[in-house]
C-alpha cells in the first residue's frame, strides 16, 4: 500500500508512487500597476502636504507642450513660483528651453521608456524645494497612448491636442482622453489653413469623455491663453485651501 495516500497501487520502486496533484486555483485580484499606484499615492501625499498644484501635461510628440509651457511660465512667473519636470527619451533640449524662462527645471531621460512613472517623479522631487513652489508642471514623454496608464500622483492630467493632429484623435486614441481632467486644443491659429473648426475637436473629445472641460488656445498668437491662465490660477488657489476634488 502506498505510504502517502493509502491507495492500493504497487510499483517497482516499492510502495511509493508519484502523485499528480491537480492544479489549485488561486484568486489574486492584484492590479498590475500596484507598485506605481502606491508610489503615486505617496507623491500625492507629498503634494498635499506642501500644497503644490501638480499638472501632468500629456500629448503626442510635437503637439506644442514645451512652447505652451514657455509662454505660460513667462506670463505667470511674476505671480506664482513654478517648477518643471521634463520627460523625454533623450536629450535635455526641452529643459534648456525651460531654463531660459528662469524657473527651476529637471530633465528626466527615460531612454527606452515611453512614459514617466511615479517612481521617476518621486526621485525627481528631490531636485525641488516643494514648499516654496505653487505650481509644478510635469511634461510627460510625447506619446498619446502609454502615459495614460501611469498615475504620477498629479492633481490634474491635461491632454494637449494640437490642431494639425486632426479632430479624430480622441476617437482613435480614447484611453488617454478618458483619463484626462482638461483638454487643450492647441495651435488654433492653424485651424483656418487646415479648414477645420475648433468645435469638431470639442465634439470628439466630449464623445469619449462627456464632461471634461475643453479650452482652445495658441501659444504663438496668445489667443485663448487667458482662459488657461485663469484655470491655473483658480486651481493653484484651490490647492492652497485644499479645495480641489481628488481627480480619481
Amino acid at each position, binding site marked *: 500500500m502506498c505510504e502517502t495516500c493509502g491507495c492500493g497501487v504497487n510499483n517497482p520502486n516499492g510502495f511509493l508512487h508519484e502523485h499528480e496533484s491537480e492544479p489549485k486555483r488561486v484568486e*489574486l*485580484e492584484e492590479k498590475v500597476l500596484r507598485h506605481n499606484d502606491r508610489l503615486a499615492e505617496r507623491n500625492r501625499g507629498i503634494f498635499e502636504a506642501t500644497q503644490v498644484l501638480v499638472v501632468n501635461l500629456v500629448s503626442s510628440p510635437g503637439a506644442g507642450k514645451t512652447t505652451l509651457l514657455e509662454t505660460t511660465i513667462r506670463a505667470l512667473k511674476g505671480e506664482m513660483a513654478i517648477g518643471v519636470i521634463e520627460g523625454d527619451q533623450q536629450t535635455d533640449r526641452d529643459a534648456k528651453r525651460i531654463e531660459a524662462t528662469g524657473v527651476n527645471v529637471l530633465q528626466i531621460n527615460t531612454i527606452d521608456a515611453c512614459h514617466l512613472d511615479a517612481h521617476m517623479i518621486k526621485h525627481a522631487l528631490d531636485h525641488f524645494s516643494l514648499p516654496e513652489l505653487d505650481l509644478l508642471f510635469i511634461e510627460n514623454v510625447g506619446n498619446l497612448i502609454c502615459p495614460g496608464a501611469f498615475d504620477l500622483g498629479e492633481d490634474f492630467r491635461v491632454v494637449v491636442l494640437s490642431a494639425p493632429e486632426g479632430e479624430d484623435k480622441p476617437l482613435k486614441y480614447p484611453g488617454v482622453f478618458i483619463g484626462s481632467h482638461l483638454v487643450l486644443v492647441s495651435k488654433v491659429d492653424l485651424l483656418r489653413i487646415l479648414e477645420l473648426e475648433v468645435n469638431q475637436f470639442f465634439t470628439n473629445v466630449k464623445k469619449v469623455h462627456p464632461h471634461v472641460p475643453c479650452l482652445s488656445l495658441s501659444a504663438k498668437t496668445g489667443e485663448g491663453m487667458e482662459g488657461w491662465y485663469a484655470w491655473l490660477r483658480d486651481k493653484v488657489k484651490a490647492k492652497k485651501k485644499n479645495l480641489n476634488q481628488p481627480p480619481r
Partner: protein
Amino acid sequence: MHELGLMQNIVDTVQDYARKSNVHKVVKVMLEVGQVSGVVPESLEFCFEVCTKQTALEGAVLEIEKIAAVGKCKTCGEGFDLLTHSFSCPKCGGADWEMISGRELIIKGLEVV
C-alpha cells in the same frame, strides 16, 4: 509599447506570491486587460515567455481575458459597448454615459501545483 515592463511587473508580483505561499510551480496566469487600458494583449503574450524564463512561472500558460469598454447611459440606463457604438447609446442616442469597464489591468488569479 510598455508591455515588457508590465509583464516584468506581473512576473514579479506572481513570484512574490509564490515565495510567500510556498508555491514552487505556477502553471497558469490569468489576466484581465481592458480594451482602453493602452495595452496590447498580443504584446503581453510575446513578453510572457521571455520574462518567465528560470522562474516559478516557466512553461506556464498565459490566459488573457479582454474586457470590453462598457458605458452605462445616463439618460436611459442602457449598458453598451462604447467602441462598437462609437460612444453613443444605441437605445436612446444619448451621449452622456458613465464608464463601467475597459481600463482594467489586473492579475485575476493563478493555477499552481
